[in-house]
């Protein structure tokens, strides 16, 4: 039972962490290498909330707003000029990640910090006591998945976004401002990144490199899953399960590498990705 809950909550965490990356990759076809730094930024949003003795729940909106604002500036200054040079764009976002990391080090120091969790204690499920906050992440991830799917499929913005994904030239020709769609997507994706950072901090600690361990797994999950949020969810469940199983029965170190290695091999054997079956 604990194993099952571990599986579910790990998949939920992976999905939360990956959703923002997916949003940007799906529309803009670039991998946002600054995603790790955004996660870290979200962690420090929690830290600031804790330091100011505010309600820990406030860290969620705070992180989202901070991330969206950073995303807007970054899209405008760095991503837009490089849209025709995608490999340079990922390099620039990577460089930006380094800059954000250094700024955080200068502002908050290298020390490991701890934050207040908005929800502490355990819940009892089928006779097992399990961390309430971890359990909370499962409905959060499902809600996020539904929300983003709804946004992409049910709204006018979503239709325009999908038009840009399918055929940017045609979409522009039909009067859709593709630059605007990219701007909104990138900002939103960045906001989701910082939000994810905030969400995962109560389960670990905050330090300037906290985003890194997640980054590679998130990259690989996005590469494998294709372009839709539900398929990303499915990928997170499958690969998250593998990670938990390897961590439990082999060693945690190998568990940390499971997703990257499995995904690389999956893509090599099935280049179109996992979700395309």
């Amino acid at each position, binding site marked *: 039972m604990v194993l099952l809950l571990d599986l579910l909550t790990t998949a939920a965490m992976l999905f939360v962490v990956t959703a923002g990356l997916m949003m940007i990759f799906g529309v803009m076809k670039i991998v946002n290498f600054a995603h790790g730094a955004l996660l870290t930024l979200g962690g420090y949003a929690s830290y600031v909330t804790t330091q100011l003795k505010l309600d820990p729940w406030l860290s969620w909106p705070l992180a989202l707003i901070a991330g969206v604002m950073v995303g807007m500036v970054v899209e405008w200054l760095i991503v837009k000029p490089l849209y025709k040079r995608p490999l*340079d764009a990922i390099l620039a976002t990577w460089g930006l990640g380094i800059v954000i990391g250094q700024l955080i080090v200068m502002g908050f120091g290298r020390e490991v910090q701890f934050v207040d969790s908005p929800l502490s204690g355990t819940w009892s499920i089928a006779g097992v006591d399990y961390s309430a906050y971890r359990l909370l992440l499962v409905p959060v991830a499902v809600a996020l998945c539904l929300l983003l799917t709804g946004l992409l499929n049910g709204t006018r913005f979503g239709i325009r976004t999908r038009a840009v994904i399918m055929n940017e030239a045609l979409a522009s020709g039909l009067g859709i401002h593709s630059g605007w769609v990219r701007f909104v997507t990138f900002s939103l994706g960045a906001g989701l990144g910082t939000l994810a950072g905030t969400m995962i901090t109560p389960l670990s600690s905050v330090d300037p490199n906290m985003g890194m361990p997640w980054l590679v797994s998130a990259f690989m999950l996005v*590469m494998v899953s294709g372009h839709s949020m539900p398929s990303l969810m499915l990928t997170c469940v499958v690969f998250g399960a593998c990670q938990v199983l390897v961590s439990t029965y082999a060693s945690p170190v190998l568990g940390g590498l499971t997703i990257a290695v499995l995904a690389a091999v999956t893509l090599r054997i099935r280049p179109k990705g996992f979700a395309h079956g």
Partner: protein
Amino acid sequence: MAEARTDRLPVAGQQTAPIRSGRGLLALGIVGLLLIAVGPWVFDTYLLNILIKSFFFAIAAITVDVLWGYTGYLTFGQSAFFGIGAYAAGLVFTHSGFSVSTVLLALGAAVLVTAAVAGLVGWLSFYRGASPFFATVISLVLPIVLTQLLLSGGAWTGSSSGLTGYESFDLSLEAWYWIAGAALVAAGLLAWMVVRSDAGRILAAIRDNESRCSYLGINASLVKIALLVATAVIAGLAGFGYGSFSGVVAPELTGFVLGTELIIWVALGGRGTLWGPLIGAVLINVATAYLSSSMPFAWQLILGVAFVLVIVLLPQGLVPLLLKPLGLGRQASNVPALAERAVSGKPVVSDKPALTMRGVTKRFGSLKVLQGIDLQANAGELLGLIGPNGAGKTTLMRCMSDGADRTSGEVELCGNDIGLLPPDACVRFGLGRKFQNANIFESLTVAECLRIAGTILEKPSLVRCDGILRLPPYALDVVRTTELDRKLNVVARDLSHGEQQALELAMVLALEPRIVLLDEPTAGLTKTERTRIGMVLSSLAHRYGLCCLLVEHDLDFVEEIATRIVVLHQGTIVMEGSFQEVVNSELVKTIYAGSTHTPKETT
């Protein structure tokens, strides 16, 4: 593709550039050699130490430049190979002591392990249809996985503190300085010779247009894997030198942070120049050593900001910009002389038809684009393939040239079943395909494009530039007819649309194909050029005995040169015959008038 760079000199500037830049480079090289020769008497011990390490790092930076600046493969993973080399020294000397045999053992391990890992990473990263992002992400995974493995290695790898205090070569600091300097010079010269050689141009061709490479019979994935293995071994040897010199190896040497630093040095130094990254790596290392103690965080921040600024604003890097006043520009290549290559004297005497298609079908989901295609064409035939837009003409050509494309059916080229083979294998069976839109290497010159087209016939040299460009007579005809021979040194991107079309045609013919697929070869050409190209095409079939397949909308043009017409409509062949038969048939008239549904009275 990502390197849509704007740092090419304008055409006019190339006439004067070679002499000046040659001199500038020479002067720079002499200054560098002098510094390496007299260093021990000029620099203090601390600086010598820094320089020796930075020389080893600079070798790794050069390998990154070859992979990224020239081939377009952005990699964070060269640090892993550097680290493997360093750990080979550290592990062997710690656990087996230091002697001649263990040195050989460590060197062998450095070479073999880096080569094996690079081969594996290459296999994972480079395959048909792999996106460049994917290869980059894999290159980031490699150092992270390796660092984790080293961290979990316990006492054997020294875990997070690494290995230290092992016995190593007993050499003076001066000797190390000269050895490291000589190794750097050797690595730089080797890389310089290779990227400037004829074979080195293939790397740029892969960066520009991988699909065209494949249709010239070049297995781009294999080339990249081989290149990765070679550069990995060099980076590994540099790491071996570093590990032997410093007497300390730590997991950071394999990490992605070092991998990122290598990229930063290359980007700031100027990618695709070799000497830029070399200077960049050495200068930044020295600066870091002096500045990181006085302003530890600010210096990293400055580097990061400078890196982002350079990527966005100055993709060609800083060092070339600083040295521009010295007359150091990108070098123009020499113009080779054109020569005729005798067509390899094996006229196809086989009784097999050049092209056979049996029951070929192509579906996209439930949409049937082609069905039940049976087609045969012999050497010496010039088939005109006509049909209204959307009839499936281009799809049909794709099914002939890429084994993975058709849904069912059989295709044989010169008697070889293509199975599921990729385009480069089809090209080796004797196929040549000219695309509808000019598909060339945009950043290479006309001469370089033509040279690369002959790669599978004449193995290009790894170290030299051939002064003579040999082409088969019919390719030469195309080049002369369209006056491309006067523009051999022009970068293909700057050609007119018609000239690009002609260049692609010449490249396809330079393959000496047995079967030529031509998708609207004369689109964008003037009337006179059309007539001349028409003559070349008919001579291909009639004089040289090639089998040509031509998609063309201009019926007058088809009438002049085609020996047989095939009419394609809604994915099936509805008629075959001479031009007169086809043009006078009621069926074809209705098809082109567009008033009929699928004709029932098909042959």
